[in-house]
């Protein structure tokens, strides 16, 4: 997956203008639904929704003794080895070679196991529809396949978003950290989280204070499942064979009995 495309988000450069949010809405033709944006809470950050695939959340945090404001763009992280896709039993969520993890509503059963599996909790469900979809950022797959950058990146006026080959993006992030060691924290969020993601973040304040999920393991999540699931065929054959042997062996010792004489319907009239 080294060839896959990625986006670098430099939190120090984001001014919270939400151009990316507007671009996303326009490109993906997302119209606000009944439960959506309009009634955004005055306090607290905006949340992702079925019709809001990206949001910019605002955080006031302590830094070097003074309070500063930081903006964090949120969307699907597009994991290199996505837990949601491995959890989907209908192949409705798939990782594309270009990088995006995309959703195909035609295949979706609506079981929501992907939502349980996602370590970043970005998947959103259309709870008010009779045939709900699971919606999230698609990283503008059609644009990427056409050698364009995602709509949000192309709209960013401050250079907070950078799009490119994931290896080059990582090199760029390291270069920025190297040239401004006083500014950036050493972590690049998304480098190793859940086995690596296609969205990488640089920040000057620790990520846990900006609402980033902590404790996401470095091992790709599907590997945990697979460590268990790969035993299935062996268990099926081995346990089945053992049972068959026990059955045949014990049958010789079995006492003949007539089941017809043993059981009877109970009388409810009594």
């Amino acid at each position, binding site marked *: 997956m080294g060839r896959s495309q990625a986006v670098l988000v430099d939190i120090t450069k984001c001014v919270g203008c939400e151009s990316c949010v507007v671009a996303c809405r326009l490109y993906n033709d997302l119209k606000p639904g009944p439960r959506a944006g309009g009634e955004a809470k005055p306090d607290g950050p905006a949340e992702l929704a079925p019709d809001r695939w990206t949001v910019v959340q605002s955080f006031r945090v302590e830094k070097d003794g003074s309070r500063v404001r930081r903006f964090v763009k949120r969307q699907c992280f597009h994991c290199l080895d996505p837990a949601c896709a491995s959890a989907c039993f209908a192949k409705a969520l798939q990782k594309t070679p270009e990088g995006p993890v995309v959703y195909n509503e035609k295949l*979706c059963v609506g079981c929501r196991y992907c939502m349980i599996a996602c370590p970043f909790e970005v998947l959103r469900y259309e*709870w*008010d529809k*009779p045939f709900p979809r699971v919606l999230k950022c698609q990283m503008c797959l059609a644009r990427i396949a056409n050698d364009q950058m995602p709509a949000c990146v192309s709209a960013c006026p401050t250079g907070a978003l950078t799009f490119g080959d994931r290896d080059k993006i990582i090199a760029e992030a390291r270069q920025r950290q190297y040239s401004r060691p006083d500014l950036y924290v050493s972590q690049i969020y998304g480098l190793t989280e859940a086995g690596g993601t296609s969205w990488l973040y640089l920040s000057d304040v620790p990520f846990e204070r900006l609402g980033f999920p902590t404790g996401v393991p470095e091992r790709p999540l599907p590997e945990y*499942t697979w460590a268990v699931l790969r035993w299935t065929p062996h268990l099926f054959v081995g346990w089945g064979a053992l049972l068959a042997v026990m059955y045949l062996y*014990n049958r010789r010792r079995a006492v003949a*009995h007539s089941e017809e004489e043993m059981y009877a319907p109970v009388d*409810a009239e009594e």
Partner: protein
Amino acid sequence: MEVGNWSFRITLPRVVLIGLVLVAALTALYRFIFGLGAVTNLSDQWPWGLWIGFDLLCGIALAGGGFSTALIVHVLHRDKYLPVARAALLTSLIGYLVALVSLFLDIGRWYNFWRPFFFWGYHSVLFEVFWCISLYTLVQILEFGEVFFERVRAPVLKGLLQKLMPLLLILGIVLPTLHQSSLGSLYVIAVNKLHPLWWSMLLPFFFVWSAFFLGPAMVTLEGTLAARAYRREPETPLFRSLTRVTLGMMLVYLAVKLIDLGYRGAFPRLFEGSFESHMYLVEMVGFVILPIIMYAVPAISRKTWGVLAASCLVVGGVVFNRLNVVFTGMAKAAGQPYFPSVWEFLITLGMWSALILVYCFLVENFPILPKEKHSSPGEGDKCPERG
């Protein structure tokens, strides 16, 4: 009520149950028209609620009596347990049907339910769960066919099914072993979400093991309830002798739980004083260690009430464990609590009412419970009287 040679006695409790089923059916209809959000308290933070957590996960576990009894009776050939075999199979079958109905209610794009049969997302635990549960329900229906064709006289079909029976029996143990464990594996992927007291790579083992030792306890509970309802002699000596299976398996369960906690370094979390740690301690002390003691102390385990009380604890304990995994353990990651809506409860109530009604109809019309021996009552344990 009699139609042909089928009978179903209508009593007041049964009328109430029928009413509950009708309410649930109407609620389900409303849910299908207006979506899950209109009926449930589910959210993006709580994608799975009462129907998956209780009706499906607990329902399937409670139906574990079917496969453990099948193993004990038909493979190990402990023939003395034959009297409870058909009842265990039947409750298991109805339990699976309830689970399938709740699953169908819960999936959003239900017209796509067949897709996993053709689009092989075999990397998903749910794929295994789906295949095994569907196949096992089919196997159970065929197993029940033997009983069915005994009543609806069709000797040819019954003979055919009897020829298939060894294969069905073995599939009927292998499939539930696989999917009872994979119900636990479902949560293996929630590494950073499920509280470390419950998250473990051994989740599949814990789920299948507990579903198995739950079997005898469930058979005891069902058998006692059925005996009370139909004023029969409960199979107490059998229930008592089954406790040895439960006791042995629970000791193994407890040991592996403790070793697992130690291996993962999660022991300190036991006493961290959080809600999760309290719930975990209640689960382990009240629902695992306490029944182990009750089964192990002869003064308790020789008494009918002792066996029954311990069995209730075991059954309640497995339910408590599943709910802890689904709700308690996930609450912190969700960032907010979940409590089911009235409608979710009504649907659940309706489904379990339907289960009771179907059970009553089947045991009253099919040869499922053993014939009464009419031996001298008062010998051994007394049949519980009911006014």
